[in-house]
């Protein structure tokens, strides 16, 4: 697969503040790439630099192999779905969708045909003559999509487009977006701060923090093998145990933590004995026992229980002030609140040692 868009050593500054620091990124053709990160991490700025709305202070933006760093948005083969949709309030749905085609100077009948086609694609028939103000949030979202797709861009950019929708509609739209992306075969670059959204839709998730890329990869990879404490906490949930690495061998590290030692897989970052590290364990990997189990074991007391339908979460605290979460299936087992302490344990392979 070739890359449709490449960012090379991109740096962006607002005044003295560096918001993007020498960032490198490649967007493969036909891929659904999500930029994920907390607000202020530079993901929107990155997207806007691809779209041409910001010019990087240093570095290059390549689109289909050509340097477009200083090319204005109206001359770039990308289109953006804005966070607020930016539908033109004085134009009908059809006029909005046709806007980009008209700028290309496409003939009238071609435009009409393409508009019809797109309205079918985003499932908005019979809305052609409505004004944006007369549409629901989801409908506006679809018009914005259709409008951005109308020019058949090499790359479609989406800037948190689902943020304004309610939870149910949002989930629906996630699936629709994904299938739309498959149907068009275009590369999508999607920006969001919602990890669940990122995992649901993406081929590649790029986790960003403080203007840098923390880690990128397929959703499963990121979930299973987070390479930093940030990713482990931002994607899904993790329990963290801070400590010092005693020894590392055969991919397994032994970590000295308060009240004992823990064993876990080593992450990909090179670590040596004596380094400050954390052991990250997913809540669903934690097992409960009344006796001290073999291997990793923490003694703790139950703090609270919360029922979440398909699963429940139990929150424990140990003698060192650490809070440990455990997910379990409420259909399969019961946990009673009580005063007595219990043992929590997990397999070595279910934990991962990361730099602190």
């Amino acid at each position, binding site marked *: 697969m070739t890359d449709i868009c490449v960012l090379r050593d991109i740096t962006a500054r607002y005044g003295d503040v560096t918001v993007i620091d020498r960032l490198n990124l490649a967007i493969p053709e036909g891929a659904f790439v999500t930029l994920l990160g907390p607000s202020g991490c530079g993901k929107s700025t990155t997207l806007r630099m691809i779209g*041409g*709305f*910001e*010019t990087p202070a240093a570095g290059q933006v390549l689109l289909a192999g050509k340097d477009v760093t200083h090319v*204005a948005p109206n001359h770039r083969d990308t289109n953006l779905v804005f966070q607020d949709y930016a539908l033109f309030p004085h134009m009908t749905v059809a006029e909005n969708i046709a806007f980009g085609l008209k700028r290309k100077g496409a003939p009238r009948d071609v435009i009409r045909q393409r508009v019809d086609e797109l309205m079918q694609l985003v499932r908005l028939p019979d809305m052609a003559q409505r004004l944006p103000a007369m549409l629901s949030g989801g409908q506006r979202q679809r018009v914005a999509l259709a409008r951005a797709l109308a020019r058949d861009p090499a790359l479609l950019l989406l800037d948190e487009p689902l943020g304004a929708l309610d939870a149910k509609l949002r989930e629906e739209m996630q699936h629709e977006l994904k299938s739309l992306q498959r149907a068009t075969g275009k590369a999508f670059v999607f920006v969001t701060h919602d990890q669940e959204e990122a995992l649901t839709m993406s081929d590649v998730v790029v986790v960003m923090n403080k203007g840098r890329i923390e880690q990128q990869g397929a959703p499963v990879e990121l979930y299973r093998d987070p390479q930093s404490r940030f990713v482990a906490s931002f994607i899904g949930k993790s329990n963290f145990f801070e400590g010092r690495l005693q020894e590392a061998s055969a991919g397994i590290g032994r970590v000295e933590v308060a009240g004992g030692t823990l064993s876990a897989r080593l992450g990909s970052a090179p670590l040596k004995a004596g380094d400050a590290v954390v052991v990250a364990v997913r809540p669903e990997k934690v097992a409960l026992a009344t006796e001290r189990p073999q291997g990793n074991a923490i003694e703790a007391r139950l703090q609270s229980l919360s029922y979440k339908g398909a699963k429940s979460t139990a929150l424990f605290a140990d003698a060192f002030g650490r809070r440990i979460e455990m997910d379990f299936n409420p259909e399969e087992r019961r946990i009673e609140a009580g005063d007595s302490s219990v043992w929590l344990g997990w397999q070595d392979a279910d934990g991962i040692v990361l730099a602190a």
Partner: protein
Amino acid sequence: MNTQPARIALLAFPAFWILLLHLGPMLAMLRISFLESFPPLPGSAEVATLANYTAFFANDVYIVPMLRTLVFSFSATLLLLVLTYPLAFFLAKGVRAERKLTYLMILFAPFWVGEIIRIFSITVTFGNRGAVNWVLLNLGILERPLRMLYGYFSLSTGIIHLSALYMLMPIYAAIEKIPDNLLEAGRDLGAGPVSRFFDIILPLSREGVATGCALVFLANVGTYSVPALLGGPGTSMFSETIGTFFHTAGSQWPVGSAFSVLLLTASLTIAALMMLVIQRRKGRAR
């Protein structure tokens, strides 16, 4: 994102326009105020002088109308503030939304008539043979017509008729902007109508009051037609003095310009002070 040449092209025209046509006339006036004679008569050279300014301070016949103008304009501004604030308040918060435009239109309708015509209509109404006197005479309330024109009464009437709008609009806009839920919150926290007015509406409309006062004050200072047509010998305003210099034959323009510069300086200073004083407490509160 804007490329540099495009940005310059965008800015160049308005910059050129306002420098030439907004600043130019003021500078031209300033320049002339230092000349001995203008417009230049054939064969005379430009001579610089300060005499046009000293003429003002040398003679109290100029200082008095200047002070009278500033004091009267200031008082008229306060009067207008007191008169229009309740109106602005009523229109912004006391009229139902769908009726608001109608209420505003009715109030504004008279302002669509030009100032000269309105002044003229005031003379027809308040003159000795005007409508008001005629009614009062016929009702037997008066025996001789009551003289209402050519004094401070007619002058103030003219000012109120002509500049109420400039006071009303900024205040109305400011009160209108105050969200109703602030008032509801005030009510919820136990504030009565009086407290809600003084603790919420009044402080939050301060900016509108400041703008309105400055606008009206400047308009009052600058009006020529009102004192010329409605004023009397005891109420002559500085604008008339200035106007005279531009109408009298001979090289009086420089004097008129110098006096204009003085009036402009004085009135802008007072207007700025008014805005500062009215808005000051807000700065402290923050």
